[in-house]
């Protein structure tokens, strides 16, 4: 009898072994990937904890923290901290990149949700006098305000600004209601001024710059120059309206020139009042970064509906 089916057994054998090989390879590959991932995730946790530790240390008053601020040798993690100086710095002061007489960099606030309030000090908030001594009082009596993020072109925010100042005998306030797109509001807003937002409205902050409170590089939607500002300005409070996404805002002092020197800088600059602290934690090859913006002596939002009084209030 002729054997017609020679070689079939070996073919079957090879097929079965190939399948087994494929299964085995996939199991081994999964285990290798798993181990690598879990090691990296553990390092990531250690790096994040170290980064948070750096922030905690830098937030303490009187603390100086820089590179290698934190070093946990027992679990091989460390953190470098950058920033921590008061911003916006006064041009010409030690450590400030702007030279004397240059315009001050804008003070950028982290993104605000709708109805949240941003608070900018214009008087010297460390002053022990009552009312606090004035700090910002430029010769041209103006202040630039930027708001909105151009990355959201269809989410146009309106802004409500409240300037609190001391008129000699009592605290007074001045309000602006500015909208860049009143036509699309429903119902239409009453009492808002329309501002055309175009042209000269760009500030860009650098993501890598640890000395700004902005959370990322921003091109603002709108810029407005508030004019005819009264003397003895205390603070400016800004509230964003109609926005869906959280959007950033900034104010910038308009004073510049050779006369912006002296103890009070001739009122050209707004007082340094915020701190931006960036902490980069590292463990092994993994790095995690935490950024914190700290603003001191901020009045909570419900004080917008309260009374500022020089003396005691009696009912």
């Amino acid at each position: 009898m002729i054997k017609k089916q020679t070689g079939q057994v070996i073919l079957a054998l090879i097929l079965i072994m190939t399948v087994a090989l494929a299964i085995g390879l996939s199991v081994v590959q999964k285990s290798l990937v798993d181990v690598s991932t879990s090691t990296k995730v553990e390092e990531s946790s250690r790096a994040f904890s170290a980064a948070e530790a750096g922030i905690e240390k830098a937030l303490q008053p009187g603390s100086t923290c820089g590179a290698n601020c934190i070093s946990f040798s027992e679990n091989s993690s460390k953190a470098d901290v950058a920033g921590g100086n008061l911003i916006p710095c006064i041009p010409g002061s030690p450590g400030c990149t702007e030279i004397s007489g240059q315009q001050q960099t804008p003070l950028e606030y982290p993104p605000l949700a709708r109805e949240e309030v941003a608070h900018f000090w214009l008087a010297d908030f460390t002053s022990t006098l009552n009312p606090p001594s004035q700090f910002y009082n430029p010769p041209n009596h103006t202040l630039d305000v930027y708001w909105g993020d151009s990355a959201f072109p269809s989410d146009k925010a309106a802004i409500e600004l409240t300037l609190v100042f001391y008129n000699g005998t009592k605290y007074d306030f001045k309000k602006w209601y500015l909208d860049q797109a009143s036509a699309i509001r429903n119902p239409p807003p009453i009492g808002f001024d329309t501002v055309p937002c175009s042209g000269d409205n760009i500030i860009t902050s650098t993501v890598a710059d640890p000395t700004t409170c902005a959370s990322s590089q921003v091109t603002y939607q709108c810029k407005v120059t508030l004019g005819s500002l009264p003397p003895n300005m205390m603070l400016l409070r800004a509230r964003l309206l109609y926005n869906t996404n959280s959007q950033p805002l900034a104010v910038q002092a308009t004073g510049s020139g050779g006369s912006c020197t002296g103890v009070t800088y001739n009122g050209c600059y707004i007082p340094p009042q915020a701190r931006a602290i960036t902490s980069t934690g590292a463990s092994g090859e993994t790095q995690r970064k935490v950024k914190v913006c700290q603003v001191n002596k901020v009045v909570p939002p419900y004080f917008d509906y309260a009374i500022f009084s020089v003396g005691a209030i009696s009912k």
Partner: protein
Amino acid sequence: MKPSGFSLIELLLVIIVIGTSVFLLANLPNALNLISKSNHLSLAREIASKQIEDKRSINYVNLVLDTSDISDSRLSLLPSSSGTVVVENCDVAICTNSEHIKKIIVTINWKDNNKNQTINLETFIGEGGINQ
């Protein structure tokens, strides 16, 4: 007359295939152990992170300087596991200005194939800091 038997190439191929598959199969239990080990590592990390977050949500003045055991129900998923949370004052070497900072050290130990494994997370909590 055609000789019966196997050709050289067939033999070589079979030897190679059998050798590789034996090697892989022998490593299969090893691979499964590695997967289980990495799962445990991830779980331990989750438990440790949660302990730190829990400490951050406590007011700074209420953070007691002590060593306490971790009581997380997920700890039972790790074989022969135990964990401690140590709250102590910040080292004078790091906190040179005697800042109000406390150091948190979370350690979790467990056994994988009778080998001791441990993970360690350390951080600071300061008065008026994050979440305070």
